[in-house]
């Protein structure tokens, strides 16, 4: 099965001149080694405000108001995008609604015994939705989508969802992870790699996912103590393979440090045996 390809735009469209078009290329490589490093800016495109706009807004009330409107507009827009597709849900059931939602936002889905569907297949999918209506939705790749807590509502009632990928989603946070408990009996694979807002607090409620076999929590910048978190998550989910790059990184770093210490010790005491010595 070819890995789903999604070249996606994440977060706000850039504005105010600065910034480049931010793209996330998420060649899904679930468990195949290193994850791509995602753009981890939680508010892409907003930074230019800090400069000129920021200093002007602190002097002029009108500008401050304007800034507030702008930020309100962004959040309104985000909520608009994350509405539940209630019409599709009512007429075609949860699987089709979820697939429609994910495809609209540039993700990919796979129904049972079917090929992956990509955003460009959306029209064809909608045309054939009667065909898909009876099939269970098994895999969803919403990597890099602007999905947030409210949008997740489209996905959490899928009775046979086996695999969910949310790599590098800028708005997936701990609240979202708390919402996943209803997938507890079916979900086997979950990837949260590179989600800038996910912390150890949210990872703690993944213990609801009883059937989980594979969990990717690599590259989470907001997790405070990565090594410890990794160990605790592994302990919490004994039947699950937990993938986390940071842990390995840390280990390597430690051993490098250690080697340096050893080298130093060896240099200071010629002829002393290598290894950690009490000094």
């Amino acid at each position, binding site marked *: 099965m070819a890995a789903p390809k999604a070249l996606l735009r994440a977060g706000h469209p850039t504005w105010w001149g600065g910034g480049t078009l931010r793209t996330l290329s998420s060649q899904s490589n679930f468990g195949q080694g290193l994850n791509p490093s995602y753009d981890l800016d939680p508010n892409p495109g907003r930074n230019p405000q800090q400069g000129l706009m*920021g200093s002007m807004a602190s002097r002029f009330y009108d500008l401050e108001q304007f800034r507030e409107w702008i*930020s309100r507009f962004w*959040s309104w827009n985000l909520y608009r995008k994350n509405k539940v597709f209630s019409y599709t849900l009512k007429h075609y059931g949860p699987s089709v609604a979820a697939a429609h939602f994910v495809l609209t936002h540039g993700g990919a889905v796979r129904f049972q015994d079917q090929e992956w569907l990509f955003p460009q297949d959306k029209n064809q999918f909608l045309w054939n939705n009667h065909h898909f209506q009876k099939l269970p939705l098994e895999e969803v790749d919403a990597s890099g989508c602007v999905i947030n807590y409210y949008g997740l509502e489209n996905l959490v009632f899928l009775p046979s969802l086996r695999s969910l990928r949310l790599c590098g989603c800028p708005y997936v946070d701990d609240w979202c*992870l*708390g919402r996943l408990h209803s997938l507890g009996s079916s979900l086997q694979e979950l990837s949260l790699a590179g989600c800038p807002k996910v912390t*150890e*607090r949210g990872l703690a409620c993944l*213990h609801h996912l009883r059937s989980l076999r594979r969990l990717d929590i690599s590259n989470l910048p907001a997790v405070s103590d990565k090594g410890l978190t990794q160990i605790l998550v592994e302990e919490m989910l004994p039947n699950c393979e937990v993938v986390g790059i940071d842990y390995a990184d840390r280990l390597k770093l430690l051993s490098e440090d250690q080697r340096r210490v050893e080298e130093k010790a060896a240099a200071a005491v010629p002829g002393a045996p290598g290894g950690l010595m009490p000094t």
Partner: protein
Amino acid sequence: MLRLALQLRVSRGLLSRGLRTRSRGPIDDKDGKWTEFKRKLQVFWPGGSWEAFSGTIHLPPEHADVVIVGGGVIGWSVAYWLKRLEARNNTIRVLVVERDPTYSRASTVLSIGGIRQQFSVPQSVQLSLFSIEFLRNINEYLAVAGEPPLDIQFCPSGYLMLASEENASEMERNVKMQRQTGAKVCLLSPEQLKNKFPWINTEDVALASYGLENEGWFDPWCLLQGLRRKALSMGVCHSHGEVIELVSSVRPMVTSRGEQVNIKRINEVHVKMNSSLEYQPVGCAVVINAAGAWSGKLAELAGIGIGPPGTLQGTRLPVEPRKRYVYVWHCPQGPGLEAPLVTDISGVYFRREGLGGYYLGGCSPTEEDEPETEDLEVDHDFFQEKLWPHLAHRVPAFNSLKVQSAWAGYYDYNTFDQNGIVGPHPLVPNMYFATGFSGHGLQHAPGVGRAVAEILLNGEFSTIDLNVFSFSRFYQVEKVQENIII
């Protein structure tokens, strides 16, 4: 235009470069006089912090439409919602009076920050559901332009409540009500419980209820500061002082049944400034009693509860401080990352604190064992005698643990039915209550603030109907009993 700007920039650049190339600058500032002068000039410059009549900035205004007594989470929440719901910007002047800007004894910052939906009164469940929605979108509600977003640090780990044989049917009833109200709570049998949390000893547990979503704990300080920051940015005034007197006028009236009642109106509050004997009278239209554990005292200042017993006038506000201890202990072998906040049959509760094998917990003492409330000293024997045996029984891993630290705080305890009081007093119609939440005030603050603002501005509750929490229930002796008190 562009060329002009460019020229300006170039010339300015040259000028400043020219100045900078001098080794010392135009004035030789050996004794620091020049720096001092520059600093003074900055202060006196128009827009600087200098004022002709200095020293009034800390005083409250002479008049405010609404005076909120108590700058805890409830007080600031009311202030925020008043500003948010006012019909036009800057129509009402709101003043928050707080006597202790360090919040050294305020319950808000001494609480453990829990939020749950497992209550026995539907209104409390609704309040919690409202609050969780508020917390989830806190950066939309409390965003201040130019300030960093708030990080509420919510841990969505849930509450796990255990029930013995006697309490099982009551728990079942409560959970049914909670689910009907919209909470995501499930019931677990002892076997299911053991499966889910193998570290629990399920002996003498008959039933457990477990919140799947929207329950957990968060950072109370962040919520308090967020509300405060936003309210201040919306034009709320604040002052650091203590309300020592409420000046009111009395109007005798006769009810339809021929009884004489005295209707009171508070016209002024006297605010004593910290570290001074002076006080400042503040004329006001409405006083909001959000003084937490001390709100009973404040109500007395308005004459509430002073009168013949059995009458409305003689009915006290039954809120008093109750001291509660919280202990933090270390136990490397303790429950893992999945551990929720557990409340035992015995009333003992504990939860994980961070990742490193730390836990915190406490327990409400029995009525006879209530400690003195003069100070916030911690009784360490209480842990040994009342807490540890139950902890070790429920979670065998806690047999070996090490207490690291402890603190105490005051519950704003309603001795009548352990529920909040929201809304105006029938005889002092311009005193509104928002107090008495007996250990769950923090999580209800967003909803309660909104409810008080609604009833003050519109005369009725529109989001959540909190009429059951009115003051008159004390007079009519109608309890709205909250059975799940932690």
